[in-house]
């Protein structure tokens, strides 16, 4: 018996590092999160702060030069009817897109979470994810063709004698237009199509976590399907619905391409930011516009929390 020690002799730097991490678990955590934390802190939060600061600057109307003094002038500018219109229009669109996505996504997510098994489940994931793999621009231009006056929808509607219905829809004041591709209805349809997967996936994940025995308990106590849906399934799936709505709502709030290609060229927040920081060179107002979606999302989350959306988490 030569070696009677309880501990094995160290075998170089890795053994010593392992021992260090074992003695001080905090060191390991620090090493692991230093890089992502620096990225978040500097690149992400830093640029947000820069944005916020910019929004408190103003622009000299004659020279077009940014005046680097803190003022609320730019925010006052935001409330001018033309700009306030843009905000109201964008928020209304985002809210309707979110609502429609939720209504469309629920049955799909419910089927996938409760009934689909094996091969069908794989088909479901593929079906949801596939559209996300092709270019966003390709999809939007494809929709422009689908929705256009000579497109497949008008053709099919006329073919089955429903051309009148389409015309009546387009004649609706406010949301109608010359054709689907040049109306708010078209913008809305494409938004819903493009963001729907972001609603389905979190919804499906949260529905999957509702135990079968809870639905059975509800039925055993005499509840029918609708009562179970309203009192048990929806409240338990609410965190997923909220997560999905955060995606669809904020993605719609910030998008500047879809309303530019499809619709009646009405201004949305994203387009306003794009023009103001580019051609117009009004960085402070662009920054102020960019702060609006952030504020709206904060208010939205606050309300969701008050309503108990995260209680079941």
């Amino acid at each position, binding site marked *: 018996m030569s070696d009677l020690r309880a501990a094995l002799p160290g075998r170089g730097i890795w053994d010593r590092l392992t021992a260090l991490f074992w003695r001080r678990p905090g060191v390991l955590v620090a090493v692991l999160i230093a890089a992502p934390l620096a990225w978040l802190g500097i690149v992400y939060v830093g640029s947000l702060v820069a944005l916020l600061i910019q929004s408190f600057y103003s622009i000299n109307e004659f020279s077009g030069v940014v005046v680097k003094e803190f003022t609320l002038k730019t925010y006052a500018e935001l409330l001018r009817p033309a700009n306030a219109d843009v905000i109201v229009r964008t928020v209304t669109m985002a809210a309707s897109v979110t609502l429609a996505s939720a209504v469309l996504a629920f049955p799909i997510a419910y089927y996938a979470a409760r009934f689909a098994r094996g091969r069908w489940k794989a088909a479901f994931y593929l079906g949801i994810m596939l559209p996300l793999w092709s270019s966003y621009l390709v999809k939007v231009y494809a929709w422009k063709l689908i929705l256009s006056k000579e497109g497949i929808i008008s053709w099919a509607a006329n073919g089955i004698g429903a051309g009148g219905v389409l015309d009546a829809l387009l004649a609706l004041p406010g949301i109608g237009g010359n054709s689907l591709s040049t109306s708010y209805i078209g913008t809305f349809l494409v938004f819903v199509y493009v963001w729907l997967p972001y609603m389905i996936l979190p919804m499906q994940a949260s529905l999957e976590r509702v135990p079968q025995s809870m639905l*059975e308990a509800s*039925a*055993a106590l*005499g*509840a029918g399907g609708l009562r179970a849906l309203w*009192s048990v399934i929806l409240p*338990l799936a609410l965190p997923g619905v909220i997560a999905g709505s955060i995606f669809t709502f904020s993605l719609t709030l910030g998008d500047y391409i879809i309303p530019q290609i499809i619709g009646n060229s009405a201004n949305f927040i994203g387009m306003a930011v794009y023009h103001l920081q580019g051609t117009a060179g009004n960085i402070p107002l662009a920054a102020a516009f960019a702060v609006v979606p952030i504020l709206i999302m904060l208010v939205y989350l606050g309300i969701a929390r008050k309503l108990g959306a995260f209680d079941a988490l």
Partner: protein
Amino acid sequence: MSAAVQFDHVSRHFGGVKAVDDVSLTIAEGEFFAMLGPSGSGKTTCLRLISGFEKPTTGVVRIFGEDMGAVPPNQRQVNTVFQDYALFPHMNVRDNVGYGLMVRGVDRRTRLAEAERLLALVHLDGFGDRKPAQLSGGQRQRVALARALINKPRVLLLDEPLGALDLKLREAMQDELKKLQRELGITFVFVTHDQGEALSMADRVAVFSQGKIAQVGSATEIYARPATRFVADFVGSSNILAPDLARTFGVAGALASLRPEALRIIPAEGARITGRVTGARYLGAGTRVTIAVNEYLGKEEAEIAVLVPAAGKVPGIGAVVGLDWDADAVHPMEAA
């Protein structure tokens, strides 16, 4: 007494698996009935056939004489206490208990008052405002019980109701469930794999094996007179006597069971059967002594377990001892 639940040649197949295989069974009104068996024996499927969460592949399930073939779970006068309790996590305890009344459209004041009354019944007064996550396992169990009782079901089903509780709490709940059942007079049907639980609580027990009922009877019948080898093995820890050995113990030509507590150790001289002590396991209330009788019989391995009460003398390992037993405790049975 009329039949609360009746199975008439009921089978439930899952693909090729016969989870329940041609079961006929009658549970009387007001009875505390246990379905006992190892996992996969079909007892839980039988419970789900009563609640309506499973439909029979063939056969008829009747509740109070009515064919349940076309009646969905929410229209049956039956309620279930689930194994995982299935309390709604987003509702407080009072709303959980009151759920059954809310579904029926009972106004809020009446149903909250009724929920409080049931919470008092299960000794949880004052817990109404808590969320299920803030309760212990035993408390959750009581909430689930109160919730299941609020609709005044005519049959209450309990799926492994005490499985998740620790020993002390389990015993307390056993007494309490028994008492509650007597007071309410409702038919209780519960599923368990714990033979002690089944024997101590139930008026009658059905022992399940591979989708079939091996034996139905009162707790004492099941314990003292097991019908098959499986029942003798599963309920308690009987000695199973092979036909040769059974003959020595006084039963001719059949397999027999003999409970360890029906045997006594006596001096070897003059004893009808002698053996050598091979092991002793202390159980608290007594000692389980195993005695090899094979070398004296010249037959295949034959060990007999004897329960020596705490006051009795436990022989040392290797000692040669004699055996005495109550003649009527040797019970012939089928081989299955």
